[in-house]
């Protein structure tokens, strides 16, 4: 495509020629990307905290008193085989008694009860996904050797509900902002199309293809999107580090993700989102123009 350089230059030139309009749409688009991005980052962190909570939300599975060593091993295997189980740790009744005795500060207690241990063997289990909490508990209950389960069902429930609400709210916000961005971009491009309708008319008259006519405007949209993404990225970086400093890097004792650990994901997502929005927005308004005005070179 030997003309691509020319079309690219034309696009950049147009941004500069219409710099006031371009600046206005960069500001709005930057705000849209920022809000979307920050919402996403909050959500990612909330998710991250949930995961940690989920890991700490241990479930104690008490085994029946008469289990054999083979039973214990079988339950362990079954637990490990469950897809939502992230960690399985065995705690024998001797260990439990030992710990209990140590807590009481009396070695004799251990010796006295050793022969007729009142404790039960147990497994300490952690889950991956709290939204499947109940379901996984049922699966464990169905194991014949288990006697009872000790779990904080309510906490898991609330956490996963909170996450769902956040996710839906986030999605709604993102969709709205994408629509706003498309609207803003396509309006900006509409104005530059309007200011260049003479050029477009001449291009049509001498036989330029729609592709050729459209490309500089799509480039213009992409440039606006790119610049917005870069500005939004810088602001996000500063804001994120600032907030991290305020929180001291953690919430309710759970660590937060550092910006350094995901800067390139943020940058890529911003660039992709900005450039794509810019291109689609201008393609929309160009498509409408070329269709409405048809091939009228005398316009």
């Amino acid at each position, binding site marked *: 495509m030997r003309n691509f350089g020319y079309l690219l230059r034309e696009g950049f030139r147009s941004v500069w020629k219409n710099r006031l309009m371009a600046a206005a749409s960069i500001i709005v688009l930057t705000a849209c990307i920022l809000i979307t991005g920050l919402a996403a980052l909050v959500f990612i962190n909330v998710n991250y905290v949930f995961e940690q909570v989920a890991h700490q939300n241990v479930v104690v599975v008490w085994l029946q008193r008469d289990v054999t060593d083979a039973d214990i091993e079988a339950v362990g295997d079954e637990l490990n085989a469950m897809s939502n189980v992230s960690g399985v740790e065995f705690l024998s009744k001797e260990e439990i008694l030992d710990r209990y005795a140590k807590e009481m500060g009396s070695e004799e207690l251990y010796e006295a009860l050793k022969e007729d241990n009142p404790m039960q063997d147990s497994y300490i289990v952690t889950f991956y996904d709290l939204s499947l909490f109940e379901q996984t508990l049922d699966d464990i209950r169905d194991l014949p050797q288990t006697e009872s389960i000790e779990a904080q069902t309510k906490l898991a429930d609330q956490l996963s509900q909170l996450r769902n609400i956040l996710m839906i709210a986030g999605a709604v916000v993102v969709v709205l902002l994408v629509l706003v961005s498309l609207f803003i971009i396509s309006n900006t491009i509409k104005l530059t199309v309007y200011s260049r309708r*003479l050029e477009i008319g*001449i291009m049509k008259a*001498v*036989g*330029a*293809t729609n592709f050729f006519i459209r490309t500089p405007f799509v480039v213009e949209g992409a440039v606006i999107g790119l610049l917005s993404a870069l500005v939004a990225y810088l602001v996000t970086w500063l804001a994120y580090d600032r907030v991290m400093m305020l929180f001291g890097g953690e919430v309710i004792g759970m660590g937060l993700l550092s910006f350094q650990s995901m800067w390139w994901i943020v940058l890529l997502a911003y660039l992709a989102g900005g450039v794509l929005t810019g291109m689609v927005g201008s393609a929309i308004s160009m498509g409408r123009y070329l269709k409405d005005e048809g*091939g009228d*070179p005398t316009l």
Partner: protein
Amino acid sequence: MIEFNGVHKVYDNGKKALDDVNIRIEKGEFVFIVGKSGAGKSTFLKLIMHEESPTVGEVIVNDFRLSKLRRRQEPMLRRTMGIVFQDFRLIQTMNVFDNVAFAMRVVGAKNREIHKRVPYVLQLVGLQDKMKSYPKELSGGEQQRVSLARALVNNPSLIIADEPTGNIDPTMSMEIMQLLVEINRLGTTVLVVTHAQALVDAFQKRTIQIKDGRVESDTPEGGVPA
């Protein structure tokens, strides 16, 4: 080559613009199209440029059967014709060279070709010394010559001039017309839409008069019968 076969054009609002028009213009001809405003001249041009389609009938331009023309082929049709407008339609922010080069760029010409062809065409219209000038620094006649150079630069087989002298003074008009005749002599079909009777009389070329959407007269030797 332009061919109109039984062409009727009725606009969506019910306005009847052309009524059974049959015309054949051969390659290399020079033809005036005359008629009052509202007679159907504009519709006639719009049909040739495939900007409007006939309600009934067939239009063939430079071997393109326009009723069968797909949207994607429209640019290819347009490349076979050069259009000169009454109001010049020059891009004010580009100098003379770039205004003409623009027409080559948008059809994908190479830079080397552009730098060879544009000065040649500008010399043809006598503007070789004004390549760096901007439209606002030129007279009306000069601007129309730039516009003519732009129409010529892609070497079309048909030049359509829509009231080319409408906005310029009589002496300049004569110059433009002489250029069009010269271009025609080099083999390009030229179609001039005008209501400047003096020009039509002066050049003695085939003249088609349109009145109320019909071909009122078609005189090969020029002039309009009384």
